[in-house]
């Protein structure tokens, strides 16, 4: 931290906790109050947890920064969440690093839709965002071409088997859950939807677009105006598909993840996406979305650090960072924010045995991406600290507002 005095220490802590993972002491788990805190969650990537163990779904720091992650029993050097003197704290090698809080459970969580679906299985809740993932099966995996860092299908298959959690949501369940969530004053500032890629349709992704239209319309029926603060994290749609989506729903912002901002590595790591669409076309489609949604209202996520996966990735952090930031600048100069998550070599992904880069790499990456937004005057309201909470770079932007 001494080397990066101009970078928020909370963001540095977040990056390192995500990078190295964390575990809970029994005391810390004892502080979980199932009536107040979230311990069940529907997520696309990562883990929906173990039905037999009540574990907090994520952590919140004093400044409102989220740490999105699940504890890892196999992490080699994890942080430890403990309860000391009545406060929950992150500790590293026995030293207290920072106070943390568990995420609170919104009022709708324990309710059921008219079809009997638990509402927490319809919408997850981040500190200020409602997360609805209508389809948790990715077609790219059908032919073994799923992205190598991702475990979406492994996670959803396990949740379906162990928790009877459906991979697909119904529009009626979405409508009813959003309706209930909006009864809680001050709880949410955004609705985000995401899904595994759906390749079918007359044109590739047509069925995915149809699914989003149906789900966004169902959520949108709860609002006075047609447009409402919302985003989707979706496949790279054609201009025609994007126009259809924009015109027929309340959607205000759009994300399609480029994942690995390097064509050769994208072809290796995101084989299915490269084969079906290709890096250049995936990128072109994201940039063209700016014509519809406007500059700053389109972002693209990268799996920060995955460009160093072996055996084909960069072997030098300086080279990797230079390549990533150059490509990110090309996006930013055309109105697209690049945001990163911290690559966690997850169980269930092809890269589960890999090693992510150093903390310093992540600090430089976060600062570099945030600085690019400042340079190109892009605001990141669509994906800021209180909406997604999974991007150290966009966390930094709240301290940089002009």
């Amino acid at each position, binding site marked *: 931290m001494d080397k990066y*005095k101009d970078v*928020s*220490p*909370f963001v540095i802590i977040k990056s390192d906790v995500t990078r190295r993972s964390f575990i809970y002491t029994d005391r810390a788990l004892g502080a979980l109050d199932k009536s*107040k805190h979230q311990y069940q969650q529907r997520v696309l990537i990562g883990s929906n947890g173990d039905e037999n163990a009540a574990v907090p779904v994520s952590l*919140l720091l*004093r*400044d*409102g920064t989220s740490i999105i992650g699940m504890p890892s029993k196999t992490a080699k050097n994890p942080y430890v969440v403990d309860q000391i003197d009545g406060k929950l704290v992150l500790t590293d090698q026995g030293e207290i690093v920072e106070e943390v*809080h568990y*995420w*609170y459970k919104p009022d709708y969580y324990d309710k059921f839709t008219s079809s009997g679906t638990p509402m927490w299985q319809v919408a997850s809740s981040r*500190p*200020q965002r409602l997360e609805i993932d209508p389809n948790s099966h990715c077609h790219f995996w059908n032919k073994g071409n799923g992205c190598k860092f991702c475990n979406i299908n492994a996670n959803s298959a396990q949740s379906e088997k162990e928790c009877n959690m459906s991979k697909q949501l119904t529009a009626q369940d979405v409508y009813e859950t959003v309706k209930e969530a909006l009864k*809680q*004053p*001050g*709880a949410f500032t955004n609705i985000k939807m995401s899904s595994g890629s759906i390749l079918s349709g007359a044109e590739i992704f047509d069925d995915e677009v149809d699914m989003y239209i149906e789900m966004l319309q169902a959520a949108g029926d709860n609002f006075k105006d047609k447009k409402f603060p919302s985003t989707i994290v979706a496949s790279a749609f054609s201009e025609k598909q994007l126009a259809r989506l924009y015109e027929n729903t309340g959607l205000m912002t759009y994300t399609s993840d480029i994942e690995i901002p390097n064509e050769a590595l994208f072809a290796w790591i995101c084989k299915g996406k490269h084969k079906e669409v290709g890096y250049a076309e995936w990128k072109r489609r994201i940039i063209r979305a700016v014509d519809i949604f406007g500059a700053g209202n389109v972002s693209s996520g990268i799996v920060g650090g995955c460009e160093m996966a072996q055996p084909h990735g960069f072997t030098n952090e300086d080279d990797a960072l230079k390549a990533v930031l150059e490509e990110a600048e090309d996006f930013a100069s055309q109105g697209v924010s690049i945001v990163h998550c911290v690559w966690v070599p997850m169980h269930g992904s092809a890269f589960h045995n890999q090693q992510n880069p150093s903390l310093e790499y992540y600090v430089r990456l976060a600062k570099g991406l945030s600085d690019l937004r400042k340079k190109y005057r892009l605001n990141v309201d669509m994906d800021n600290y*209180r909406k997604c909470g999974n991007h150290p770079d966009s966390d930094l932007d*709240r*301290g*940089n*507002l002009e």
Partner: protein
Amino acid sequence: MSILTESVQALLQDSKAAKVLATVDKQGIPHLVSDNTITVNDEGQIIYLELIETSRSNVNLVNSIWFKRKVAIHLSKGEESFQIKGYPVYSVISGPVFEHYYKLALERNPEFDLSTVWIIEPDEITDDTYTARKNKERDEHPLITHLDRLAK
């Protein structure tokens, strides 16, 4: 235990008292907001409700909590006047505390859309009346005064 005396806490809870929050940006440029809803919680910490996410005060407070920079609050009513300096220690954006103040803000004005509940830990407090400040100066710097004041 809070350093705020009972009388200062009472003044913080008085909606008719004048309250001003001072913050600085990264370049040290000061920024003031006058807000008589600034109050105190049961732990003796100062509560400031930020209604504008992108306001200069909010950005300055973010940088204050990140880099441990003090903010100042001026508090006055009638003959009473205090200056409190402290550190923002919590930026509350969700959960029961946030929702409590969100509803309170709505009751004050249905147009208010609360962004952040800032919790400020007081670190020093000074009596800011002229009399108190002048007495302090006379004690510590007896050479600073006009001679006519000392004449027979």
